[in-house]
């Protein structure tokens, strides 16, 4: 299979096209996904052109209906791949997502499956302010019955989206808006990355940096800087948050004996707390230092470019936390 350099956005589109060709039950619905090509341009990479308005459906501005109709469509045999423009808007549809999609399989004794994928754009960095910039993955991880995926590279986003569309559970698929333009080598044909498997993006022996989504590249940059100081950092990209690859985290900590968890979302109640708790419970004896969390402040994402830049966790903040751990 040949490979090609493509952007994260193109890789998402590539997975959508492959899955829609292979399975006529897969369709897309969302705001501006049709002729306009999606607000981040994803369906504009030939998805609408190839499949047309019936399978790439523009919907009214009704987030609850986008998610709710998909629950019904999935129950009746389709495999919806819906799009919610910004993750912030998902809050409008949380009832259909968390009370319906996540629970129908359980409530109905396994009789109704809900194979839907909900793609949505997360994260700060574009000056889109408090209502268009949040990373709310912790809310999803706290809801039983949902799978949450947050890929960081073009390769991962394509392989994981294919797996998500073929999965029989409701999957929330978080695409970081600052990654859409990032390019990388991606196989041209179909391939699957298993859901629930973390990936070591850089090997190291002194400290483990657990991260996902937009924070992976910040951790890699921090690891570069730390290497110059003789500190070897391992960057573990979770890729999937639920189900969580606990083994990969514990294996890495067994090697490095130090852990920093890095996420863009606010510190308090963030998913980093869950990981810290698991390692404290199952890996206490592996640790040579306390567990660090490096996360956004407990504030809304500011509009001001100066303040927004301060909000987003960067390599220097990560490196500083690591130095504390080793100090």
């Amino acid at each position, binding site marked *: 299979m040949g490979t090609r350099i493509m952007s994260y956005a193109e890789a998402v589109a590539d997975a959508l096209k492959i899955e829609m060709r292979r399975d006529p039950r897969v*369709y897309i619905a969302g705001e501006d996904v049709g002729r306009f090509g999606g607000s981040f341009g994803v369906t504009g990479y030939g998805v609408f052109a190839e499949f047309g308005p*019936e399978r790439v*459906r523009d*919907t*009214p501005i*009704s987030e*609850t*209906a986008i*998610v*709710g*109709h*998909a*629950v*019904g*469509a*999935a*129950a*009746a*045999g*389709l495999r*919806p791949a819906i799009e919610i423009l910004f993750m912030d808007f998902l809050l409008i549809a949380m*009832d*259909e997502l968390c*009370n*319906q999609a996540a629970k129908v*399989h*359980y*409530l*109905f*004794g*396994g*009789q*109704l*499956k809900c194979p839907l994928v909900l793609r949505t754009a997360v994260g700060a960095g574009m000056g889109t302010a408090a209502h268009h910039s949040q990373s709310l993955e912790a809310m999803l991880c706290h809801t*039983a*019955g949902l*799978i949450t995926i947050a890929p960081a590279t073009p390769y991962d986003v394509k392989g994981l989206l294919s797996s998500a569309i073929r*999965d*029989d*559970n409701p999957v929330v698929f978080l695409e970081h808006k600052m990654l859409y333009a990032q390019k990388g080598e991606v196989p041209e044909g179909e391939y699957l990355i298993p859901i*629930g498997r973390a990936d070591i993006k850089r090997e190291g022996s002194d400290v483990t940096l657990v991260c996902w989504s937009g924070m992976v590249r910040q951790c890699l940059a921090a690891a570069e800087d730390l290497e110059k100081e003789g500190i070897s950092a391992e960057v573990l990209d979770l890729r999937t948050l*639920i*189900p*969580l690859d*606990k083994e990969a985290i514990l294996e890495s900590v067994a090697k490095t004996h130090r852990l920093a968890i890095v996420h863009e979302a606010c510190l308090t109640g963030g998913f980093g707390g869950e990981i810290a708790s698991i390692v404290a419970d199952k890996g206490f004896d592996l640790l040579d230092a306390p567990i660090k969390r490096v996360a956004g402040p407990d504030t809304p994402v500011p509009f001001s470019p100066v303040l927004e830049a301060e909000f987003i966790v960067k390599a220097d903040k990560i490196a500083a936390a690591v130095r504390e751990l080793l100090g």
Partner: protein
Amino acid sequence: MPVRSLVSYSIDRVEVLDPQGVVDEALMPDLDPGEIMRLYEHMVLTRRFDERMFKLQRQGRLGTFARVAGQEGAQVGAAFALRPDDWLVPAFRETGALLWRGLSMTQILQYWSGDERGGAFPKELRTLPVAIPVGTHMLHAVGIAWAMKQAGEQVAVLTFFGEGATSEGDFSEAMNMASVFNVPVVFFCQNNQYAISVPYTKQTASPTVAQKALAYGMFGVQVDGNDVFAVYRVTKEALERARTGSEPTLIEAHTYRVTDHTTSDDARRYRTDEEVGLWRGRDPIERLARYLKTQGSLDEAGEAGILADADQKVAEAVAAFEAIPPPGPEEIFKHVFAEMPPQLVEQQAALMARLARRR
């Protein structure tokens, strides 16, 4: 610049069978005597089952549930118009419709006893399980209708809800999407006048629910919900429009909940005996019985036979329900996901180990 009227609409109300049991022959739907007798028997069964469920609940043998009494004409009449390949998406008060679709009384009892296994409705019934949250399921009906349209199946989806649900945003979004997508859904509102204690006039300032259809470019009609012939006629026409033209419809069945909202409230606290008495006089089952008697199809012996037959079926179902063993504790983890992920395998193993120690 003249002022011009751009649109004007009216809303029809359909009545066929009057409270004395006399039908308007011009509007009488095409039902043969055998079908009418089945309608009657089924409405009686629904009521007897409802009454027995109420007793079981009071005895602590069943959980909280929403009673049907008074609304048999609306929901049985509507469900009777469905074809087996159509879909039914109920709310939480449609016991009569579920029974008509072929769901067993035993399974309905199992569900309301608080056993999730009772929610696994047989797939071939094309009937979604009970939806407890108010209004969320109307959107599922739209999605099912979309899936059917995509599959090229000429079938319709009937969804039930109450007038209280029309105040939820989900109603508006579902109606709008159904019209914009042009999908075959029949929205069937059982306007039973109360959302728990809140009366219709405090729920909406709209004189009818039916007219809410107009804003979405949808056909809307009101029907006497205690008149099973009118309900059947209107629903059948709507389902046919849905199947052939993929056109959605909003039907408002004007009816009344003669009992409490559920087994957890007491309706005497918010409405008068006089009002309830007025509606008891419009009872859908008695009205149909009067018609059958004037037709010579029913006499007192026949009536008693139908009652006895219904009670026998209910008794058998209750016995079968009470013989179902409760679920094992490990089932708490079953069906959270299509396949159990590692953290649930771990939690289930921990529970089983703890239980084994306890034993």
